[in-house]
């Protein structure tokens, strides 16, 4: 059963022409990769483009793939590099305006709506919405180096060693970046420190 096979086995299957191998890989990884990209670039539209580009590169690079390589390391290296390139292209633009919408969704507010809010929404849904926005904002304020490490470790559950392989720095550097990221996020989200306990 292909669904239970390891990523590397699936990739080799696709390498031999079995499209079902790629289908299982896509089903397994599209959501985490999409959320990694989305949290990295902060734009859903851009995240969709980069997600598509990531898997297109997997398709194009399938012939050159070697089974010894860990598939997720390869996959997230592609995704991460696309995010870094995108971020560099956007650097010449004006820094994100506080008036800009946070996402494409019609009901999304602006950062001004949520950042200095002292009024805690009584409604759980509103609180959750506010927290989600604050988390996105806190992530956006991290440096790229800290953000990518934090996202990979926290959301993709990648060991520091694998992150070091993807990013191309020593493992201790990754841990150091992670420590600074955590401390910065703690300071950013200090006012919400007890909120997580209240969330469903």
């Amino acid at each position, binding site marked *: 059963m292909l669904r239970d096979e390891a990523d590397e086995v699936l990739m080799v299957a696709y390498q031999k022409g079995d499209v079902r191998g790629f289908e299982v890989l*896509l089903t397994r990884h599209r959501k985490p990769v999409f959320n990694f990209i989305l949290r990295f670039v902060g734009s859903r539209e851009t995240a969709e483009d980069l997600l598509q580009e990531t898997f297109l590169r997997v398709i194009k690079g399938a012939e050159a793939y070697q089974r010894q390589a860990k598939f997720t390391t390869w996959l997230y290296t592609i995704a991460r590099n696309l995010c870094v390139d995108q971020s560099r292209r956007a650097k010449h633009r004006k820094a994100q305006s506080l008036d800009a919408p946070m996402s494409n969704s019609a009901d999304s507010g602006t950062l001004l709506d949520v950042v200095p809010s002292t009024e805690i929404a009584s409604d759980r849904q509103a609180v959750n919405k506010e927290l989600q926005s604050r988390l996105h904002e806190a992530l956006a304020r991290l440096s790229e180096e800290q953000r990518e490490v934090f996202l990979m470790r926290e959301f993709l559950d990648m060991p520091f060693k694998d992150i070091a392989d993807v990013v191309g720095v020593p493992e201790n550097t990754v841990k150091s970046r992670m420590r600074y990221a955590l401390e910065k996020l703690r300071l950013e*989200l200090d006012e*919400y420190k007890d909120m997580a306990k209240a969330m469903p």
Partner: protein
Amino acid sequence: MSARGRDNEEPMAGEELVSLLYGELGAAEDADARARVSSDPDLAARMDGMRRVRDLFSVMEDEDPPPRLSAQLMAEAARSAPRAAAPAASSGDGFWARLVSWLQPLTQRPALAAAASLVLVGGVAGVLYMRKGDDLTSSSRPAAPAAASADTATVAPPAAPAPEPAPAAEEEAPAMDEGGAAAVVESDKGEKQRAPSKTARAPRARADEPVAKKAAPPKPSGVKSGTVLGLTEQEIAPPADADDAPQAGSGAASSPPPPPAAQPNAPGSAERAEPAPESKPPAQSKAPARPDVRDLHRRAVDAAIDRRCSEVRSLAGQVRQVDSGYYSKSFSRDGRLQSCLQSDKTRKSTK
């Protein structure tokens, strides 16, 4: 903790703290780090702050990518599958599956396919060429021993043999040159001896073979159908008399240089004389039969001319024994022999 003490501890403790937070320490290190954190309120507070950050992000919701992306990617994956025919090939591990997988790169690269075709054609041509050379070499073997069988006993050694049998015509050239040079020396010896015996003449012709082959093309007249390299059995057999010798020599000149089986004739190689090949016995058993009858016939004619009728009668008896048909059709009807044969009949009838 003072700022200074914190600075001294932090680089190590910070990385350890992160590793402890994500459970990436070994059992012993983990226990040690936990002990340090529990004994240090500052470390414990930092650890707690990191845990709270993790708790906060644990409620961060994942978003789903749009389904259309998956559909587009699947379409692209199907279109760009690395090897479209691979599923059928990989389903079996048999010879054809492997053959197909081997040949697939050729079909994708026309230049490589063209190069492979050239190599294949060249290889086949080379094999055919080599086999043709082998056929020529092997088919010449019966001829040489046959010639040798008649000559070797009384013949002086022919040209020095080539060190190894040369399979191809181009490779034979050096050996022929070497043999030819030796043949010239041998030919000079023959000139000095001047009047060699009948049997000594044939080897001289053989010694000239390489030179003759190199100097002049084979005579078309010597090539007959149903022959071995253009030589009939009679031509392969030793000449019956002196008049036949030049013909034999010319016939041998059209034959290729002596194959390895003929090498025992080489100087100093008599001890290495090998048994004749399989084809030799038939050549020996057939070859003496007819020439002998004709030889006997010829000798009988000579004897009749000299009026040596007793010898004629003796030879007639031998011819009758060997080939009664030849005797009745040719020998007994030979007018030159009639006087002796008649006298023999008369003598018998008077008895």
